[in-house]
């Protein structure tokens, strides 16, 4: 490990793990076929791809959009770009049920915001991704893995890559209204990987095996199971997200088969897989190998994790030691706080009414209570505070905004000073999340921003509102999208102003549009009389007021 610890960049780390023979990454295809690459092969292929990319005219510092659905092609191309000093910009490949138009809007927007020179695709993504050229995307060309990387690599000089250089741009959501690319530098990545995989995080062991189906265009999958694990030498098994979607149990079967020790997922996935498990599945699984089952990326529900642990106890899973709630965000590279490894998760039962007023008071036996899960403490050299609107530190059990600083915190959004200034203030990253600290441990309890998070994915209400606003029959600009909790899960509600005669038809069309465009199904579509949505003085519909009315059942809806 000593040689590894001196690596200052992803490229140096890759070069060094390449010397550890026999270890590497295992990629499972959608057809179930596995391909194993040793670190040495990954290093060799990355160097070859770097040479091909340079020969294609790309230069150090250029941005290269990656729209690649196959995990092995994605990882090898990403590493190749990095070795050449080129900055990859991962973009999600189009989902099966989403309309092409909306997807191309997002893709074009990301390419523009990143000022990407080129886009790299594979045959499977080319057919739809190349249509981005019909829009204002600023791309000079589209490159194809199959042709670009065929044939012997030209010789190329080694490109210097420094800790201060951009490693990649992480776009935080598929928002068309405000795409923001987080600038992850090599030094941020290395600092964060060593923090969350080091002694105060998952405490990496030589026999660790990571298992993940998380998408690689998202920080938890990309850093958690590709880049961070390379920096710290943890072999992984990567499943396609789509395979998990088609068969959730495959996740646990893969952990069993490959003796996985570390896995991670958002809350919804633990819930989904628990509901799908049958006693026969549990009987055929041995998960005693799994020492870390981490949870993050969306609000964590204590009961979900407990139900998962209960269901899998007969399979040897020890929830008291393995469940690891955590908190993080792309702006801080990935991880901000981790629950202490090997200890039972902490559940804080607080008074619901007091919490609405900003105090986390332990609930009495008869009070309406909210259960919150402890997400742990920040890593060494990193700091976290809870602050009020004036930026003053709040005492324990008082709710405020979570702010953090340290070597993992990135320097802001790519060429977007306005958004950067909004979130980075006086040296601290303002997360936009609400939380409190109790006995030193962080509890996350809401958001200041109006972001909607469903099944680990972020949606900007504005995007949904704009899309719905374009529908015929909807009063333009008079649409509000917000999230509400249904049975402890965040879900989407859309409220639109329209005439009562259109209500039944509009409810259907709005649900359909939102599903096509965003892959989301609203838990409720409210058609309200014209002029009844709460507005600001400037006439903008108010999300929080509307949500409150809806939750108090005071929103007047057309039948």
């Amino acid at each position, binding site marked *: 490990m000593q040689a590894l610890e001196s690596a200052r960049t992803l490229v140096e780390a890759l070069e060094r793990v390449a010397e550890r023979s026999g270890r590497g990454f295992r990629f499972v295809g959608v057809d179930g076929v596995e391909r194993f690459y040793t670190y040495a092969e990954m290093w060799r292929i990355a160097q070859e791809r770097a040479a091909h990319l340079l020969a294609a005219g790309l230069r150090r510092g250029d941005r290269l959009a990656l729209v690649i659905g196959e995990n092995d092609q994605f990882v090898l191309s990403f590493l190749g770009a990095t070795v050449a000093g080129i900055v990859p910009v991962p973009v999600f490949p189009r*989902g*099966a*049920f*989403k*309309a*092409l138009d909306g997807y191309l809007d997002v893709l074009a927007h990301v390419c523009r915001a990143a000022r990407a020179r080129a886009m790299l695709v594979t045959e499977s993504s080319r*057919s739809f991704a190349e249509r981005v050229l019909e829009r204002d995307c600023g791309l000079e060309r589209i490159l194809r893995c199959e042709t670009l990387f065929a044939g012997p690599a030209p010789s190329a000089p080694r490109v210097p890559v420094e800790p201060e250089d951009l490693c990649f741009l992480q776009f935080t959501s598929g928002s068309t209204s405000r795409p923001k690319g987080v600038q992850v530098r090599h030094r941020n990545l290395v600092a964060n990987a060593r923090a969350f995989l080091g002694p105060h995080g998952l405490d990496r062991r030589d026999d660790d095996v990571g298992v993940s189906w998380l998408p690689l265009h998202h920080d938890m999958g990309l850093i958690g199971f590709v880049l961070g694990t390379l920096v710290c030498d943890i072999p992984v098994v990567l499943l396609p997200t*789509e395979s998990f*979607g*088609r*068969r*959730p149990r495959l996740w646990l079967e893969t952990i069993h088969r490959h003796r996985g020790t570390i896995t991670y997922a958002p809350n919804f996935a633990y819930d*989904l897989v628990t*509901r799908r498990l049958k006693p026969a599945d549990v009987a055929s699984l041995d998960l005693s190998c799994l020492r870390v089952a981490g949870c993050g990326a969306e609000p964590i529900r204590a009961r979900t994790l407990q139900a998962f642990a209960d269901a899998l106890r007969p399979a040897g899973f020890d929830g008291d030691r393995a469940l690891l709630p955590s908190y993080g965000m792309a702006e801080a590279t990935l991880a901000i706080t981790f629950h202490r490894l090997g200890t039972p998760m902490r559940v804080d039962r607080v008074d619901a009414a007091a919490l609405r007023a900003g105090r986390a008071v332990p609930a009495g036996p008869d009070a309406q209570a909210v259960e919150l899960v402890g997400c742990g403490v920040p890593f060494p050299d990193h700091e976290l505070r809870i602050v009020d609107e004036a930026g003053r530190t709040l005492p324990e059990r008082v709710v405020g905004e979570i702010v953090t600083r340290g070597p993992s915190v990135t320097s802001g959004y790519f060429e977007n000073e306005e958004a950067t200034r909004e979130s980075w203030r006086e040296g601290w990253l303002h997360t936009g999340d609400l939380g409190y600290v109790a006995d030193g441990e962080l509890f996350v309890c809401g958001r200041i921003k109006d972001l909607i998070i469903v*099944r680990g994915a972020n949606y900007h209400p504005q995007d949904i509102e704009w899309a719905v606003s374009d529908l015929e029959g909807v009063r333009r600009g008079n649409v509000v999208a917000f999230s509400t909790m249904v049975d402890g899960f965040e879900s989407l509600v859309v409220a639109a102003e329209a005439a009562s005669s259109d209500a039944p038809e509009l409810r*259907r069309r709005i*649900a*359909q549009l*939102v*599903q*096509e465009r965003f*892959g*989301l*199904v609203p*838990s409720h579509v409210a058609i309200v009389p014209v002029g009844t949505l709460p507005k600001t003085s400037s006439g903008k519909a108010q999300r929080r007021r509307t949500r409150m009315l809806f939750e108090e059942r005071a929103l007047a809806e057309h039948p």
Partner: protein
Amino acid sequence: MNRSELLDKFRAMATEIAEKDFSHVSEDAVIADLGIDSLGMLELIGTMERDLGVAIPDDQLVGIQTVRQLLDVVHRRLPAA
């Protein structure tokens, strides 16, 4: 398998996956109206693939909105009886 058996199969699978009663859902139903999101759809397709022994590639699913359209795709790919 004929069309009405396929519809019954769909109803049973959708009921299990969405945990709602879909035993009377018609072919004209719009999938979004059933409260099945893209992840639920994917799981439904995966279940059909395994149960019926068919492969349904993603590109066949683009633009599908109704139960009828989905069953058309599946039906076309069923091995001839």
